[in-house]
C-alpha cells in the first residue's frame, strides 16, 4: 500500500513527529547534559549541545560525587536497589503464581472473597500502610534495612502478581485439570507439569511489571531507610537537595541517566510484555 502524501497525511506525520519531540526532549536533555561541563550549562541553559565532551561526569556520578555527605556517588544506592529489586521480584512473582494457580484452578469456599481482598491491595494507597509497616519492621528488627524493603515489596507485590496470574490461569480449561487428577497428579505435580509450562508469557509480564515498579518506588524507600541504606530513587532526591547550593547539572544528569537505565532497558527489550502488563493491570 503506497503512502501517498496528501496534505492530510503530511499533517498527521508532522503531528506525530512534533509529539515525538515533546516526549524525547527530556531524555535528550539528560543525555546531552550528562556530557556537558557545569560551566557550559551554567553559561547557557540545560537545553543545548555540549561544547566539549565531559565524560568525567559519569565517573563522578557513579563513584565520587557527594550525596548527603557520603562521597561515593550513586553506585552504593544502585546496588541497594538491585539487592532490593531482584529478590523482591522473584519471590513475589513465584508466590503470585502459586496464589493465582490455587485461586483460579483449585476453587475453595470463599475464594472470590480472598481474591477480592487481595485485589483491593492493588488500590490501597501506600499512606494507609506506612504506620503499620513501621511497627512491623521495628518488631522484626528490619528497620532501615534492604531486607525490610524486600519484605514490604514482596507482600505488597503479591496483590499485583496474584491478580495477573489468577486472571491468566482462569483461561486454562478445568478439563485439563480433571484429566490430570484422574491420572493421580497432585497439587504440585499439576502446577509443575501443566500450569508452569503454560506460564512464560504471564511470568515475563509479571517480572517486568514488578521490576519496574519496585525499582521506581520512592515513598517506602524514603520512609523506611536513610543514609547508606537508601535505594537509588531516594538518593536522587537527596542528590538534588545537596547540589541546590552549587548546581552540578552535568553530574546530576549522569546520575539520573544511570538510575533510569535499568528500567529503560527493560522497556526497550521487553516492550511488548511491558505494555501487556500495563493494560492487563488497568482494564481488568
Amino acid at each position, binding site marked *: 500500500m503506497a*503512502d501517498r502524501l496528501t496534505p492530510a*497525511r503530511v499533517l498527521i506525520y508532522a*503531528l*506525530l513527529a512534533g*509529539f*515525538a519531540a*515533546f*516526549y*524525547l*526532549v*527530556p531524555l535528550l*536533555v539528560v543525555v546531552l547534559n550528562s556530557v556537558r561541563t557545569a560551566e557550559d550549562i*551554567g553559561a547557557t*541553559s*540545560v*537545553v543545548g549541545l555540549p561544547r566539549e565532551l565531559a565524560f568525567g561526569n559519569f565517573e563522578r556520578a557513579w563513584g565520587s560525587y557527594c550525596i548527603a555527605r557520603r562521597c561515593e556517588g550513586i553506585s552504593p544506592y544502585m546496588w541497594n536497589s538491585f539487592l532490593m529489586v531482584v529478590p523482591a521480584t522473584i519471590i513475589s512473582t513465584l508466590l503470585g503464581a*502459586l*496464589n493465582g494457580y*490455587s485461586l483460579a484452578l*483449585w476453587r475453595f469456599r470463599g475464594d472470590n472473597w*480472598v481474591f477480592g*481482598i*487481595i485485589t*483491593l*491491595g492493588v488500590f*490501597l*494507597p*501506600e*499512606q*494507609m*500502610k*506506612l*504506620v*503499620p*509497616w513501621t*511497627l512491623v519492621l521495628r518488631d522484626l528488627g528490619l528497620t532501615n*534495612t534492604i*531486607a525490610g524493603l524486600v519484605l514490604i515489596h514482596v*507482600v*505488597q507485590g503479591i496483590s499485583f502478581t496474584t491478580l495477573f496470574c489468577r486472571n491468566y490461569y482462569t483461561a486454562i480449561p478445568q478439563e485439563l485439570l480433571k484429566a490430570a487428577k484422574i491420572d493421580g497428579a*497432585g*497439587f*504440585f505435580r499439576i502446577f509443575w507439569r501443566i500450569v508452569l509450562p503454560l506460564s512464560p508469557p504471564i511470568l515475563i509480564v509479571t517480572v517486568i511489571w514488578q521490576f*519496574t515498579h519496585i*525499582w*521506581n518506588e*520512592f515513598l517506602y524507600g524514603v*520512609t523506611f531507610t536513610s543514609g547508606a541504606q537508601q535505594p537509588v*530513587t531516594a538518593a*536522587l*532526591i537527596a542528590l538534588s537537595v545537596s547540589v541546590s547550593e552549587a548546581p552540578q547539572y552535568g553530574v546530576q544528569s549522569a546520575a*539520573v541517566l544511570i538510575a*533510569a537505565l535499568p*528500567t*529503560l532497558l527493560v*522497556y*526497550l527489550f521487553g*516492550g511488548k510484555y511491558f*505494555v501487556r502488563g500495563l493494560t492487563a493491570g*488497568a482494564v481488568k
Partner: protein
Amino acid sequence: MTPDPGPATAPAAPALDAPRAAARRAAARPAWRDAIGRWLPHLVLWPPLLVSVVHVLGFTGYTTWMSFTASTLMPDYEWVGLRNYTAVLNSRNWQIATDNLLIYGAGFVVLTTALGLLLAVLIDQRVRGENLFRTIYLYPMAVSFVVTGTVWAWLLNPSIGIQRLVRSMGWGGFRFDWLVDREMAIYTIVIAGAWQASGFAMALFLAGIRSVDADLYKAAQVDGAGPWRIYRRVVLPAIWPIFIAVLVILLQYTIKTFDLVRALTGGGPGIATQLPALVVYDLMFQRGLLGRGSAAAVMMLLSLLLVLVPYFGFMRWRRHREARHG
C-alpha cells in the same frame, strides 16, 4: 545487621539425623507420603494468601483505628473520636492540598486523556514507523516519577531551563516561570504528569480502537462516512468503557501523587503545590502526629473509594448484562 539463616548452618541439621529419618521413611512411607501430599499444598497455599489478606485488612483497620486515637510520635490508644479529622480538615495545609488536588486532578485527567486519545487516533492512521512512535510515546512510563520530576524541574526552572533558552535566542522579555510562581506552580505538575502518563492513555485507547468490530467500520464506510465521522460516530461510542477505565486509572494516580511533586517542586514555592499525600507524610514523619496523619490517610482512601466503588459496581453491572445477553 539482619539475622541471616546462613547457608552454612541450614543443611547441617537434617544431615545429623539423616539415618533416623531414612529409617522412619522406609518404615512408614505410605502414611507419611499421604500426609505430606494432603497437607503440603495447604502449607504452601495458605501463608501467602493469608499474609496478603491480613496485610490489606489489618493494615487498613489499624490505620483507621489510629486515626481515632491521640497518637503523636508513638501509637497511643486513647480514643479521641473525630478530633484528628476536624484538626486536619481545618488546617490550611489540608485545604490548600485539597484545592490543589482538584485543580491538578482536572488538568491532569483532561490533558492526559486528550493527548492519549489524539495520539491513538493519529497512530491508527496506518502510519509508517508505528512501532517507533509508540515506543517513544510510552517510554516515560518506564522511568520513575522521581526522574520525571527532576528533569522537568530543570526544564521549567526559569534561570536554567526553557525561559533562559528562549531569552538567549533573542526574545529578552520571554517569561515562563510557573515553577516559582505560587499561582501557576501546580500546573507544572500537570505538565510533567501528562508527559509521563499520556502514552499510557494512548496504549489503552489504541487497544480499544483496534478491537472495534471491523464490520462496523465497513458498514460506516459503505454509508459514505469520512474517517473523522467514523471516529466520532462509530469508534468513540464503541470504546466508551475504555474512557471510563482511563478516567478511573488517572484519578487514582491523581489521588496518590507524591513522588512527582517531591521531585518537581517539593510542595513549594512555600506550600503552593501541597497535595494530600504530602500532607500525610508531613504529619506522620516530620511533625510526628501519627493520629492526624492517619486521619489524612483515611480521607485519601475515602476519596479513592469514591472513584473505585462506582467503577467496580459498573463493571459488575456490565458483566451481568453481558452474561444475560450472551
